[in-house]
């Protein structure tokens, strides 16, 4: 499956075993996306949250 990068319009490949919530990166510009929905061979992505000060373990 593929989605279009919202920044640079490059193709972002989504693995067949991807799950909703997984993070994918654009191979061209490096923008991070979250898999928003999956179904019938289609996928939608949304901009992933950026790392915040309180992120971690």
């Amino acid at each position, binding site marked *: 499956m593929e989605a279009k990068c919202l920044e640079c319009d490059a193709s972002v490949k989504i693995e067949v075993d991807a*799950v*909703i*919530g*997984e*993070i994918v990166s654009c191979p061209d510009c490096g923008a991070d996306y*979250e*898999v928003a929905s999956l179904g019938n061979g289609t996928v939608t992505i949304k901009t*992933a*949250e950026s790392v*915040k*000060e*309180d*992120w*971690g*373990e």
Partner: protein
Amino acid sequence: MNKPTIGILYDRIRWEEKELASRLESRGALAQMIDAKMQVLPLDSSRFDSIPELVLGRCVSYYRGLNIASTFEAHGIRIINSSEVLELCGNKLLTSQILSKNGIATPKTVVAFSSESAMQAIETIGFPCVMKPIVGSWGRQVVPIRDRETAEALIEMREQQADSMQTIFYIQEMIKRPPRDIRCIAVGDDVVTSVYRYAADDSWKTNVALGGRTEPCRLTSELEDIVLRAARAVGGGILGVDVMEREGEYVVHEVNGTVEFKGAQTSTDLSIADRMVEYALSLEQISAEKAATSAQA
């Protein structure tokens, strides 16, 4: 009989969350993925019907994970780890206090609450020492201080930040340790794995998130003892206990409430996720039995 359902509360699906879901399914349970970012929780509800009774908390954002945990708990949902455990582990000052109170060896720490008193705290520890933010992870803003000039520059930089947390100065002695520390993962009453974490070539920090590598570490009885004592001190559950070696003794410097284990998994044949899942299912079974007993009464 219905399959047990365990929630996995996330805000970012990483390898760990996928592995937990997979192991739950391997054990015949259902994994219900709960996106913390999308929850809308009316506080006047008696309970949140869509949320299972037991949830594994896996939020990467500390404040989000802590606050959603306390909201779930207020509505009768059990979350591993509890909000109390998350708060104790997520705030280094609280962790240090609870470790000291329980007689667990931990680095000498001095805390000051203004830039005016910060230098005195640093001088109390002496050089070299380490300045850390009280909330934060992955080694962010953890700085070695080797001289007064560096200390002054750091204090000045922190003073100029808008975030009030930056004027809480948590100063710790720098432990003379080998170029590694030990990550132990405690699940309930067991230490399921212990691995050395070596710093990357260009760093003194051992965080795997910063490129540190892991190697197997033998779990001695002394190591097991201090790890379990630290885990119990913060309230128990699923915990990443970080230990340093100092001249033949162990020193606990951190307890992580939402442990990442991808790095540790590369140094052990045992499935860490499976042990976590086994623990969660045992708690779920106890809750289900209690509910059945009270329904019969």
